[in-house]
């Protein structure tokens, strides 16, 4: 069970990376047009 501190640390760090990624995405307007993302994949150009 000595591994526990390391495991908790790693899990939280991984989660944190995800959270930071989300915040970065919000800052750069990735989530401003959810409808558009859906439709643009169907467009020909």
């Amino acid at each position: 069970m000595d591994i526990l501190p390391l495991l908790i640390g790693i899990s939280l760090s991984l989660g944190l990376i995800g959270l930071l990624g989300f915040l970065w995405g919000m800052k750069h307007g990735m989530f401003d047009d959810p409808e558009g993302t859906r439709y643009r994949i169907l467009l020909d150009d």
Partner: protein
Amino acid sequence: MNNESVDIAEGIKTLLPDFESAAFRERYVAERADGLFETRLLIKGLRCAGCVHTSESILRKIPGVVEAEVNYSNHRARFVWNPKQASLKSALESLQESGFEGLPQALVDLNQPQQKDEAESYKRLVVAIFCSMNIMWIAIAQYAGYFSGMEQRYRDLFNLAGFVLSTPVLFYSGTVFLQGAWQAIRQHSLTMDFQVAFSSLLIYAYSIYAAVSRTGDTYFEAVAMFITFLSVGKYLEKLSIRRISEASSFFQNLLPFSATRIIKDSENNETKTTVRLEDVEPGWILEVKAGERVAADGIVLYGTSMVDESHLTGESLPVQKECGALLTSGGINQQGVLQFQVTKKVADSTLSRIVRLINDALSRKPRTRVLADLLAKYFVSGVSLTALLTFSWNFQQYGSLESALVHGVAVLIIACPCALSLATPIAVLSGLSAATKRKILFRSGVQFETLESVTDLVFDKTGTLTEGSPEVKNCVWFSLKEESAALSLVENSNHPISGAVRRYLNKSGAVVNPAQDLDSFEELAGKGVSMKISSQTFYGGSMAFMEESGVLISAQQKQQILELRQQRPALFFFAQKNDLHAVAELTAVFSIHDPVRIQSRKTIQHLQKMGLSTHLLTGDHPAVAASVAQECGFSENNVHSSVDPEGKAEFIEALQKEDRIVIMVGDGINDAPALARADIGIAMGSSADKALEISDIVLLNNNPGDIAEALRISRKTYSLIRQNLALSVIYNIVAIPVAVAGWVIPLVAALSMSLSSLLVVLNSLRMNYRNNA
């Protein structure tokens, strides 16, 4: 028939400002460092994703356009172009040809604080949820350890993790509550925010103490979950506030920002200059072209035209203006060019007064006492008192500071206002979604509580109880039915009355004779239309036009016309002259009125049965008002005619002084001051932008019957709010003794928080909004 497309097709000019003027560019166009121009456009008329794509393509195909991207979610476009190759005006015209309308957004409105606020609160929510979820998987281990025993070093580890994860929740996500608590302290009032902040900080501090001194249990996860649930509640509240009209366009200004001034020198040579609206002085001569808004109050000096003054009177039929006629600021000039002399400064003009009225009414709008806020005060004081009593009683009994602290804090933990804070937002969201499904848009959930105590409804006539556009009521043919000729005559006219006649003839199956060649066609503003086909001449228009064209009207025909005039309709006369006879004869008379909506009568009766007082206020003539009032079922002394925008607002104020709660139902700019002043303003979906912007409820179906529906939904929602609040109070009454007895271990705290919130959510899901009556 789709009225929207008829308008565009008929070419009734929509307002296009002077795009090249510095005044316009200053407000709407950003000049980039690389010389390109950029603006944001709100695109109207987009009915589906295909339309969005089409509008994007239209813009992109224009040579000189560097970037055009339309947001599918809010229909705003980023538009960048090279001013040397393309112009904004031509781009908007291209859009208009395909049936879309592009409205430039003012640069100041771009960084809308509301959008940023929403993004910020969403970020806070996400961080809180992230930390809470992680804290919980650590907490489960702690709960297990509580029962089976745990080594100190692991306890320390978990406590540390709990501390690390709960700190951002309390101090980043919980900033809203901390700030709210600070304000409450400054204002000496006990609000929910204060309770939340105080409890959280105390529990947090106690947990740090417990971790460091290695005695007792820590409640970090309780703090984190607590703040998270409450943040969800706040976010739900934010979601339920809608921006009903997002058209932050120049329509909102109601006045143009520049005008054309005419200066005549001694030799009567005219020079035209563009002046800013703020600089316009009384005595100046201004020119207003077709499609432009009249900049200031004045008297017409030269020209003949029709002006749409619906912002004042609510009537969509344009009024004829000739030399000597009065012009009011804000009217839309339909056809000809008018030159007029300004009589009042812009700041004193009619329209400026209306705008001031609206803003004034909005600032004095009565605020509802929200039920949850009322409860909060009692709750906060009650819980704090209980915690304090528990602390002191326990200390007295057992003498240990620590034990007393634990018990006191336990009361605060268990009494967490999770359920209380979620009670209203969840119920509101439930009600809002039910309303939205029925195409009734609420500006915010507060209206549910206001609607509960409504006593009076004030209705506008034109466009609200009536359709708002002219229709032919009946038609008298004096001789042979020349329907195809009549149709050809009105086909080419843009006047709303011609449109009504055309629709009537189309419905009765008339078709234009394609073999006939039009020799000439003439439309005289304010009078009528005439056309020549080979040897025949046809006339259509007002009585004055008939007399001018020398049309013979027999005594018997005059009698019939008099009878038709009883109801004060608009009359469209149709006459023809075959060159063989020298005199034109009256062929037909069309009686035109503004029809009452089918649902109006039933709605008024239903509302009266509910015990509400109904009033009709209109700027129209008494005779028309009386006939509509009778058709709908208003009692005679509740009908007021010839009321101007100011009068409508004053009427509502008078009712409010009698402590009545008033709903105003309207659709035009002339209703805006009243809509702003009323406790609740309801607008039809087809209303003017300004009316939509300030209304509290919008009926997208243009059906007055939806008012009764809105009342029904709000009654159910209000009762749901009361139920949820009752549940949270009951929960607290049951839970607090648990805390006093000292049974609140972290597991119990976490469970209680979740269960109370779940209780409120489940109760809200149970609500059935279907109309069982």
